[in-house]
């Protein structure tokens, strides 16, 4: 806390590029022993890349790192841990079928004749659990039976057993209850008092105010501001994150609406969404923005019948879906979806373009249960040409295409099915800039031809330019629908980051 505290972690001019994209460009920051430092930035600002460099998962292109004044260039995560830098991941790496004690001693068991000496580790383990304020936790408890919050503490305990001096916490409260979050804040501050330096990443302003004393804001891979939390307002932080207001690239008209096609009211799923309502008109592009984990994907999946409807209704025209209705009922009534996960869900990468294209409606190319090769080729060629899909042939496996062309195949499936409502989850993720523009042009053309489009996206300038109207999702809840021209990056961010760990009623 004092200004005389030694500098624990120092980052000087670190850069890292992936191909042509510069993920971080010359970032520098110092963190003292005993300091909790907030690292702030939009999705894609370079936080994760910087943390991966720190934790040894990535090697920087240039720049130097120091821990306690000594040069630090970890060869991998385990090397980083040996040097006292530990990352606490969002997804916890614990073995659920082992006990607390076994998890904590994993990889550092002391043994004799091949038998684990259980008692040898006990004093250290008790000591660490006491430092974390969970000395009452029975070391024989199975980790799988613990709450998310307790698991997180076990993960931190493991880092402490490694002698961590620098802790990196990435969105640590994203899956915690309010009380677990509060406990975590206390423990984080206590660890800092003991001399740890903590890098704390979160999107939530009040959470950062609670734990952190100082901050660094990243935008487009560069430091755009830093200082003490007490000297800055939330509004100033958001302005730093968003940068100057971005000019709208399109003069797209929001008035070309037709009749109401999709109506969602008070929709709740297993966890997210919570009481979400929206109306989508013919010819309209409605964008849903929000932080990662805010429940945007779950909203689309629940509307599409991939996740169970717990309460509320989804209607297309006069038809309302029951909670037992599956995905096939959505396709039948003219709703199609493009998944955010092309590899894992959206496409069959080792099968040809043609198979991927017609899968939702194989009967369109079949006679009496047999596929007509000529119909299949004809339909596939039609979409390859009209969407300008770059492929060597209709039989080329989809996995051999570029990301942008893969996405066109995923979209073409919906067009081939001739749906009226398109649910697009991160349609421009993981594709190059030019393909992004192509995909957005395609989306706009589709809307102009009378389709209704609901699109989830993370890149705010893109969403502001491409959508007619935008809604912000925050912890499973949808905010007010406003024309895209009524939003700015700044106002979207304010609404997306508004909540604390609390779920407002």
């Amino acid at each position, binding site marked *: 806390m004092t200004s005389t505290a030694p500098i624990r972690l120092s980052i000087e001019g670190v850069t890292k590029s992936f191909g042509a994209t510069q993920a971080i460009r010359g970032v520098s920051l110092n963190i003292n022993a005993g300091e909790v430092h907030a690292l702030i930035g939009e999705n894609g600002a370079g936080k994760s890349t910087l943390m991966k460099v720190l934790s040894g998962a990535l090697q920087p292109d240039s720049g130097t790192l120091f821990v306690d004044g000594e040069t630090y260039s970890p060869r991998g995560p385990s090397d980083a841990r040996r040097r006292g830098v530990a990352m606490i991941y969002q997804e916890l790496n614990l073995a659920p079928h082992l006990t607390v004690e076994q998890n904590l001693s994993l990889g550092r068991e002391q043994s004799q004749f091949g038998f684990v000496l259980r008692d040898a580790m006990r004093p250290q383990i008790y000591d660490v659990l006491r430092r974390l304020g969970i000395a009452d936790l029975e070391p024989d408890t199975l980790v799988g039976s613990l709450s998310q919050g307790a698991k997180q503490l076990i993960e931190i305990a493991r880092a402490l057993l490694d002698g961590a001096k620098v802790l990196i916490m990435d969105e640590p409260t994203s899956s915690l209850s309010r009380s677990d979050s509060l406990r975590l804040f206390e423990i984080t501050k206590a660890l800092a008092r003991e001399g740890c330096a903590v890098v704390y990443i979160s999107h939530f302003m009040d959470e950062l105010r609670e734990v952190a004393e100082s901050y660094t804001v990243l935008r487009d891979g560069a430091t755009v501001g830093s200082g003490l939390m007490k000297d800055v307002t939330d509004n100033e932080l958001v302005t730093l994150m968003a940068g100057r207001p971005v000019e709208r690239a399109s003069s797209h008209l929001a008035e070309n609406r037709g009749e109401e096609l999709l109506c969602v009211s008070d929709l709740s799923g297993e966890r997210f969404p919570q009481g979400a309502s929206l109306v989508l008109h013919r010819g309209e592009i409605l964008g849903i923005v929000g932080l990662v984990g805010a429940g945007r994907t779950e909203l689309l999946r629940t509307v599409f019948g991939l996740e169970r409807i717990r309460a509320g209704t989804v209607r297309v025209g006069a038809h309302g879906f029951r909670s037992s209705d599956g995905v*096939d009922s959505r396709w039948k009534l003219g709703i199609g979806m493009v998944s955010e996960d092309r590899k894992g869900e*959206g*496409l069959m990468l080792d099968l040809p373009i043609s198979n991927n294209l017609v899968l939702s409606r194989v009967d369109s190319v079949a006679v009496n249960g047999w596929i007509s090769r000529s119909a299949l080729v004809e339909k596939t060629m039609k979409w390859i040409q009209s969407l300008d899909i770059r492929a*060597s042939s209709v039989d080329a496996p989809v996995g051999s295409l570029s990301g942008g062309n893969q996405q066109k195949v995923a979209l073409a499936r919906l067009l081939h099915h001739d749906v009226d409502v398109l649910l697009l989850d991160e349609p421009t993720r993981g594709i190059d800039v030019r393909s992004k523009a192509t995909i957005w042009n395609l989306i706009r053309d589709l809307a102009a031809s009378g389709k209704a489009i609901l699109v989830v996206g993370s890149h705010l300038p893109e969403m502001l330019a491409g959508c007619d109207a935008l809604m912000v999702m925050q912890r499973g809840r949808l905010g007010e629908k406003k024309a895209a021209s009524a939003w700015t990056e700044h106002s979207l961010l304010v609404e997306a980051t508004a909540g604390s760990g609390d779920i407002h009623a």
Partner: protein
Amino acid sequence: MPENRLVSTLRSLGPLVGLLLVLVLFGSLEPEKFLAFQNIRTVLTQTVIVGLGAIGMTFVVVSGGIDLSVGSSIALSTIVVARVLRDGGSPWLAAVCGVLSGACVGILNGALITRLKIAPFIVTLGTLQIVRGIAKYVAGEQKIDAPASWLADLMTKSPSPAWLIVSPGVWALVVLGVFFGAVLKKSVIGTYAFAIGSNESTAVLCGLPVSSIKIRLYALSGLLTGLAGLMQFSRLTVGDPTAATGLELNIIAAVVIGGASLSGGVGSITSSLVGALVMAFLANGCNLVGVPNYAQEILVGGIIVIVVAMDRSRRMT
């Protein structure tokens, strides 16, 4: 694309090259015995049971599943055929009942896999035991003798009329191989099988009735297994509850040597049948040359590992 075509051509030709190698090797070592018409006819007849099983297994494997219960199911089918004959049923009735018993086992497998959401390996490991037990129970734990009928001629080594050249079982295998080869490659259900095996999540996203498709695929596989059981009965001319023990592994080996991927999405009927022929000619050739049994087993095992390793490296490039 030319490269892709090359890869897929190699994939389909690989097993054929292997078969040729086996034929050339033993053909040069023991030309008189190995290449004798009578011997080839015998080997073809020996391939029928594994071949029919491999057709069904290919559908299951392409869809990402596996069926370990086929050996037991074949035994049950021989018992059913023998009992129907013994109790005075006509050969036709016995044949139909035998085939249907296999289909029932298939439907049971499919239903358990989809309703209980248990991995196919585990479910069929269970039904392997259950069906074997049922076969023994139905048979009263002994072989069932059946009155002579034309069913015994299905797998005869010298068919009559003589213009058939090979046994009716071989012809059945050829016809069904061609038919189901087309079904897998060109029908809607075949397309669905590839889709589910390649990426089940995509199949769900596209609204396919995944569970019902899987049940149909296991039922189809069971139907062919039942037919393999009928051929097994024809060969033994009795119902034997201990018949075909471990035969599922030969059938899976044939499918794998044929280039199908056990993780689903890849496979073809013709290649699986070539795989079955490789195994049959290899065993026959080894016997003729006088390779001891243990060496044969090591050889077959080695071939399986090498084939899969080659396939893997081919896909990496």
